[in-house]
């Protein structure tokens, strides 16, 4: 009875591990275990090395434990007292030295990778420089070399090194795109954190905030869009083109008087809240309402914008946006009108 239990108990985690590995271990655009760029790969390589060492250690400990527990059970007829062993100098030295060697095996590549990760590309002429600012609960991305500012969707050219400068406007946040690179905190006291990553493959990657920052911490998500050089140039150009305002003059007036007090579109408004230029082309509304016309992962952008504008607190509790209806006095029609305008505000 005991025998089967012990064996089962010890096999279970291994089987579960294998099962999960076979299951793919998460989404390609999100999982640490499916790295999509060199920075994440460097972390992943260390992880694989560490996991291998650790599984070997576990197997040794588990098998000794299983052997001891099965072999040295007290039998009913046993009366004599077992030999009282003081210890064994050689054995004890052995299990001091072997862990030390294992630590060295892990420590050497760790130190190498630590210094490699310190290479931040901030003085690299070919790198794209992006200033990231964390806000409760959204991300601001400023392309300092191009004079372009956007929010929630970080558009980057595939394969190019992106040099980040991280800071925060309020509390601590942590900038994390699991499949592209490890995370880095944003500190509020003027200490800028720098790091860099690149995304060789075009695609959309999910990013998260990893440091508790208030009620909607879990909703402080963003997307990284890796696009071709040509697309990137085009994106920059259309971001810089003059703002498009609502065609309906009444909606336009409302939009200016209500929304542009905090938001910016193109050259208009102020960028206190997220920049709205070309919001119709983004992957999500407010980072979490995913724009998906098929309805599998989310809803069409127009629906998402309406959901958001009718109840921003309901979507993201604790966020700083005033309620368009209660606080700004907009009517339902005006809100829907603005939503339609924003949904149609796409970049070429």
């Amino acid at each position: 009875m005991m025998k089967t239990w012990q064996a089962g108990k010890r096999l279970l985690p291994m089987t579960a591990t294998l099962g999960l590995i076979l299951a793919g271990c998460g989404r390609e655009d999100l999982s640490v275990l499916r790295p999509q760029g060199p920075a994440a790969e460097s972390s992943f390589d260390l992880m694989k090395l560490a996991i291998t060492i650790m599984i070997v250690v576990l197997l040794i400990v588990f098998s000794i434990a299983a052997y001891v527990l099965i072999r040295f059970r007290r039998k009913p007829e046993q009366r004599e007292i077992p030999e009282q062993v003081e210890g064994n100098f050689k054995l004890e030295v052995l299990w001091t030295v072997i862990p030390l060697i294992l630590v060295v095996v892990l420590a050497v590549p760790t130190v190498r990778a630590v210094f490699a990760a310190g290479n931040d590309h901030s003085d690299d002429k070919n790198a794209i420089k992006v200033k990231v600012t964390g806000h409760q609960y959204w991300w601001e991305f400023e392309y300092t070399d191009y004079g372009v500012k956007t929010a929630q969707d970080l558009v980057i050219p595939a394969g190019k090194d992106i040099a980040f400068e991280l800071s925060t406007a309020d509390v601590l946040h942590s900038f994390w795109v699991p499949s592209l690179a490890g995370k880095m905190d944003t500190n509020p006291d003027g200490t800028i954190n720098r790091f860099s990553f690149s995304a060789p493959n075009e695609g959309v990657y999910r990013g998260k905030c990893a440091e508790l920052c208030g009620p909607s911490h879990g909703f402080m998500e963003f997307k990284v869009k890796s696009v071709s050089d040509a697309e990137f140039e085009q994106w920059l150009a259309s971001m810089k083109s003059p703002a498009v305002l609502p065609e309906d003059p009444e909606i336009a007036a409302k939009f200016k008087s209500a929304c542009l007090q905090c938001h910016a579109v193109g050259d208009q408004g102020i960028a206190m809240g997220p920049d709205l230029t070309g919001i119709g082309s983004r992957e999500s509304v407010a980072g979490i309402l995913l724009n998906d016309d098929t309805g599998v992962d989310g809803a069409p952008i127009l629906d998402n914008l309406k959901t958001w504008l009718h109840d921003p607190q309901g979507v993201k509790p604790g966020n700083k946006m005033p309620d368009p209806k209660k606080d700004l006095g907009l009517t339902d029609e005006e809100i829907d009108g603005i939503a339609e305008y924003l949904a149609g505000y796409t970049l070429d």
Partner: protein
Amino acid sequence: MDWLTTVDHKKIAILYLWAGGLFFGIGGLEAILIRIQLIKPMNTFLDAQTFNELITMHGTTMIFLGVMPVIFALMNAVIPLQIGARDVAFPFLNALGFWTFLFGGILLNLSWIMGGAPDAGWTSYTPLSTTTYSATHGVDFYTIGLQIAGLGTLIGGINFLATIITMRAPGMSYMRMPMFAWTTFITSAIILFAFPAITVGLVLLTFDRILGANFFEVGGGGNPVLWQHIFWIFGHPEVYILILPAFGIISEVIPTFARKRLFGYSSMVFATILIAFLGFMVWAHHMFTTGLGPVANALFSVSTMLIAVPTGIKIFNWLFTMWGGQVRFTTPNLFAVGFIPTFTMGGVTGVMLASAPADFQFHDTYFVVAHFHYVIVGGLVLGLFAGLHYWWPKMFGRMLGEGLGKWTFWTFIIGFHMTFFVQHFLGLMGMQRRVFTYLPNQQFDLLNLISTIGAGLMGVGMLFFLANIFLTSRKPADAANDPWEDGRTLEWTIPSPPPEYNFKQTPLVRGIDAFWKEKTAGHKGMTPSEPVGSIHMPSATILPFLMSVGIFIAGLGFMFSRDTFSSEALSFLFNNYIVTGLGLLITFGSMLMRSLYDDHGWHIEPEELEGR
């Protein structure tokens, strides 16, 4: 009343156990609520604010008010007995330590009904914990409640240091001390050095919040990363404050039920000391992603990995203690042998986390959540269960039921692995920690469901344990002196539960595992080291209780000193620090009485001892 005035270490142990158990239950309920909220994506069982309050209080309660007091309960119940002492060095302080802990804990938990629990995480990182971003009194309850409770811990730690240094029975040299006494000794030393750091941190944060200081407030030139350093220079050694006593318990339970002496005793002692020493050197591994730079990250990576070496020594020594022994699977030993593989799993993920470039991925994800629950629940809580089942007859004179004990073990450990094993994968698949919910279709759903079911199973295990306690308490207290029959240390030489004075005659210790040594030499009990004589006992006193009530009132008064109340009288009392003053008056008044009234205690005379 007897319980309010007692200074007897055995009764204080029971007080610690009940109070710690109560807070452990509260923390456990908080955990269950957290897991229910995370059972499926976009769940609306709890709102975001309540969730953040729950995770903050769960962490804080479990660490400071749940497991630490239970550790102190076992230390109080066992340490004087194990070293052959009649009490701790300072019985009055021992009582004071308990009452400050209890009132600190009550103050912290009052936050649930007095306008909002703390919500900035158990680490209370600034600026989220400053008044700008956490405007309720929540974090004030945290800073002041923990300050008062921490006072108790510091007092307890110093008391055990003094006890172990000065009150060992004749013949008990340091290298003959039982391992649990050793780990208590080292733990107390860590407390002595680590708790002042959190004390200072909490004072600074309190000043920022209540008096408008600018230690961490960025606008006033403060530095928020400073808080992280102060917190972790305490917080990392705290991990060892928690786990070392568990190591001690395992080192007692396994030799008893394997009927063999601990393998490599001296290497165990030095491994313990080394762990404590290294524990102070590695605090910044909690801060790899803060931007300390590659040099600091490399140094803290390597020093953290080194802790694996002494810990590994311990694991193998335990395994080889059983090698060639006769292992009995009693409930305490089940928990002890369950501890070894489980804790090893927590240990190896610790080494993985130590590698800074990999930690950039692990940090603040469910991988970390899984890791520290493997260490704290899979290590410490399993250790505490082993210790509680093992010493229960010594504390209460009653054996806990073996049948229910085994049910407790199996439901708890299966539930535990179900809850936390899958969380490693959740973290690696991109789920960050402290999120009140998550979007669907990220492949998080199934694993979270499994985790929640596991948490429920752990809850069932706890119910079995409570049922066991309840049923046991209805049985007569008739446990033998040495109920496990293979007891090795001094506590098993005296009745269960022990008389008020513990040892009628202080025993003479002739070697390691003193009682076992006498038994194998064919003796029934210990050789006394003194003739039967008059025993000096400390008097019971209400003063420790009053002092703690005073600090409690002062804390509340200080916390609300800037509030405006609807009643003018209340505003007057609080805003002019009258409540604070009153509380301090009670405390200092009690101290004054303690100083002026010379209490010589009382004696138990030899005739009375023989009469029993």
